[in-house]
């Protein structure tokens, strides 16, 4: 078998990496966030140059100084965030990607080649559809199509399933199968063990910028890979609370939320969260989780439905009111929303609490109290910062999260709404976050955890609620749950579950 090989020792973020990808192979690149996968791929795509070592394509050395070089060399990239102009049609987006399209009426020249490729790889594509109206899976196929049209022999997919339901992911894998048959090479970047085992031929694990191992998928096991990824035994176990759940603290009935355009984002959602339990909200991004979190924390008003917090009706209450009632929010976008980057750490530590005593005396702020609080928080949560007056945007992601956690969890909340709290955090920060959430649960607070990471949800939650297109498709006890059950629910399949599942 002739190899389309890439072999290169690398750069500081990548330490002497050797990687070989063969023709007709799906090669997975596995690693935690920050392990160096992206840098490696950037070098392959011409976005960065290796400091040492070289890239060989089909046995010959390749100099990739820009994406254009990479494309000419037959390398295509489908990034995590799609490079598509949403208001343009599919045809326009594809025409943009192909410099050979004619100057006049560039989209017409595409019809034949697109039809041919679509048939070969088994997908359907409507050239005249506006990209913004397509589902993430369909948008991704447009990106793949663009790469294929440019003559890609090697396709790099960066975390492709992060926006797909399990069923759409299967469709993607079918396409990858065809690519394999056609002799194309595929590099699949992921941190999802199970998927990688399902589709890849060989797996290379990166950790801390180095290649830790390369295994054949057939013989590897999830546990082994996880250990390689993290460097130590990963406890994938759970630590449920000693006491069972207490009284219902949050009760949501028939919650309906519409977008600005009138589409239903949440469709009659019913949900209960008890004190002393963690309820996980699962689902592919975009199915209503964000809206749910926004309504519960006062950032959005629902069109219909009731929300009872400790028995009181809080539908329509604003952020301030909810916060005063003990609802705290760990937001998804911590840098743009959770803190004010340009303000000091001490200021951010009182960001939402500034209206309450002791920080506020009448209309004025008591800065001494603010400083004192900051000193305490920095100490208790071990926030690594040069001083309490440092501008917050200088802190690392993990420390910013600590600031948010210190602030939100410091006031004995009743309901904790956490949205993707460990996204982009390293292992230590993730473990701390998990611990703090568990502590809140043990304290008796109700915790609602929204996450795309099914492993995290399975580890932390007592129950998992699955959202699909704004409705609850099912609720399962985390203890006995199977991933494929949840996967089906995430895709909207409500077939009756094993005895453990029930409606909330």
């Amino acid at each position, binding site marked *: 078998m002739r190899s389309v090989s890439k072999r290169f020792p690398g750069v500081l973020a990548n330490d002497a990496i050797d990687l070989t990808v063969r023709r007709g192979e799906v090669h997975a690149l596995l690693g935690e966030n920050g392990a160096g996968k992206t840098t490696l791929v950037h070098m392959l795509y011409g976005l960065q140059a290796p400091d040492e070592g070289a890239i060989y394509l089909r046995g010959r050395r390749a100099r990739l100084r820009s994406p254009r070089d990479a494309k000419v060399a037959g390398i295509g990239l489908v990034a995590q965030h799609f490079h598509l102009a949403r208001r343009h049609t599919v045809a326009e987006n594809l025409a943009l990607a192909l410099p050979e399209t004619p100057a006049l009426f560039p989209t017409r020249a595409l019809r034949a080649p697109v039809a041919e490729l679509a048939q070969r790889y088994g997908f359907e594509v409507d050239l005249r559809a506006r990209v913004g109206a397509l589902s993430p899976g369909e948008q991704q196929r447009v990106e793949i199509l663009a790469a294929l049209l440019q003559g890609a022999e090697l396709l790099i997919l960066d975390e492709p399933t992060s926006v797909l339901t399990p069923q759409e992911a299967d469709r993607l894998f079918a396409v990858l199968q065809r690519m394999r048959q056609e002799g194309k090479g595929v590099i699949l970047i992921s941190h999802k063990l199970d998927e990688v085992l399902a589709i890849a031929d060989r797996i290379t694990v990166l950790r801390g910028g180095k290649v830790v191992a390369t295994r054949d998928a057939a013989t590897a096991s999830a546990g082994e890979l996880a250990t390689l990824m993290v460097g130590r035994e990963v406890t994938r176990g759970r630590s449920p609370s000693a006491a069972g759940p207490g009284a219902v603290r949050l009760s949501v009935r028939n919650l309906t939320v519409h977008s600005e355009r009138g589409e239903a984002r949440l469709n009659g959602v019913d949900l209960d969260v008890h004190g002393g339990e963690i309820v996980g909200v699962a689902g592919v991004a975009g199915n209503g989780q964000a809206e749910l979190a926004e309504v519960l924390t006062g950032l959005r008003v629902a069109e219909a439905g009731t929300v009872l917090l400790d028995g009181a009706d809080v539908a329509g209450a604003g952020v301030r009111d909810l916060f005063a009632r003990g609802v705290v929010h760990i*937001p998804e976008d911590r840098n743009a929303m959770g803190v004010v980057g340009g303000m000091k750490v001490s200021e951010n530590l009182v960001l939402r609490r500034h*209206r309450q005593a002791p920080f506020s005396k009448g209309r004025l*702020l008591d800065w001494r109290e603010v400083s004192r609080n900051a000193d305490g928080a920095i100490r208790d949560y071990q926030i690594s910062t040069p001083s309490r007056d440092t501008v917050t*945007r200088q802190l690392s*992601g993990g420390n910013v999260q600590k600031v948010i956690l210190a602030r939100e969890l410091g006031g004995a909340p009743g309901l904790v709404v956490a949205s993707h709290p460990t996204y982009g955090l390293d292992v230590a920060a993730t473990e701390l976050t998990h611990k703090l959430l568990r502590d809140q649960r043990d304290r008796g607070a109700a915790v609602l955890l929204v996450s795309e990471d099914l492993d995290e949800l399975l580890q932390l939650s007592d129950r998992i609620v699955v959202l699909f297109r704004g409705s609850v498709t099912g609720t399962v006890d985390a203890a006995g749950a199977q991933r494929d059950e949840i996967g089906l629910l995430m895709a909207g399949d409500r077939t009756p579950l094993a005895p453990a599942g029930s409606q909330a």
Partner: protein
Amino acid sequence: MIAGFRLEQRGSIGPLRTWALSLGAIVVAMVLTGVLFAAFGVAPLAAFATLVDRTILDARGLSEVVRRAIPLMLAGVGLTLAFRARFWNIGAEGQLLIGGVAASGVALFSGLPGPLLLPAMFLAGFAAGAAWGLGPALLKVRLGVNEIITTLMLNYVAIYLVRWLINGPWKGRSLSGFAYSDVFEPAAWLPTIGTTRLHWPTLTLAIAAAVFVAWLLTKTRFGFEVRMMGESPDAARYAGVDSFRTTLVLVLVSAGAAGLAGVGEVAGIHHRLVDPASLSVGYGYTAIIVALLARRDPLAALVTAAFLGWVAASGDVMQVALRLPSQITGVTQGLVLLCIIGVEPFLRYRLVRVPRNAGNGPDGVRPVPKGVQ
């Protein structure tokens, strides 16, 4: 990106650096102005010498500089607030004029007893200016209508409104050629220092306003929320700051402050309603530069207003002594602005060595923030 280094955004630009930036911008702008003058037939050094002689070394000249600065201070302080709400209030010019209109109305027609006149004029001016800003504020906050255009259009509306008044219903009885309203009664005249035209009550008001705003921003809850909004609207929303209400309040105060500046002009300088070209003289636009140069700091705005007041007074001197159209001060002003924004991005970034243990979370060049704020 060069391997081993990365561009990192500076956490904060220290106040010293900020001042150096503004000062540097001023110096460069002045030098370039000199170059342009030379290129188009005005000897720069001689001109500069004349300016210094007449505006700084001369007591009367200095008083002119200060009195020119007064409306700039008021409007400029107001704009520091509006800009923090990300509301580009280009309409200070019109708000100033409307304030003048309101004050003139009170002076000429209200029939109030003497001692009440001036306070009433200031109140009316503030209210009128604020009302002039209300429309664009509501349109932006509720409908997202671009406030640059709406406030700007209202400037023109205000100009024509004033012109209509002084040529029509409020036309004064006397005077050849030019149109003015009648002269105000003496009780409606602001006192000035000595024989100068420096109407000190407005000056006091301006300084008081700056101090008040500075105190507001640092010591009060509201000020904290304003600062939040100015830095990160998303975080402010998350923190429960009512951005509608806050923006509205800030715009109203900003527009009202410009209105006060207008009152100062009619009551302190002209003592009647005059043509907009003489009344507002581009103060509203210059105030934008005051606020930007001061980096939205109200106390700094007092200083930058003084500088721009000097530029404006220089324009007068150039007109009289050198027979140049006074609008050429726009050259310096434009250059100052360009210099500020031109240098800023270079100060926001620096080269940093990437430490050996790479991969600690997200890195890379952050999105470029809006420059001058």
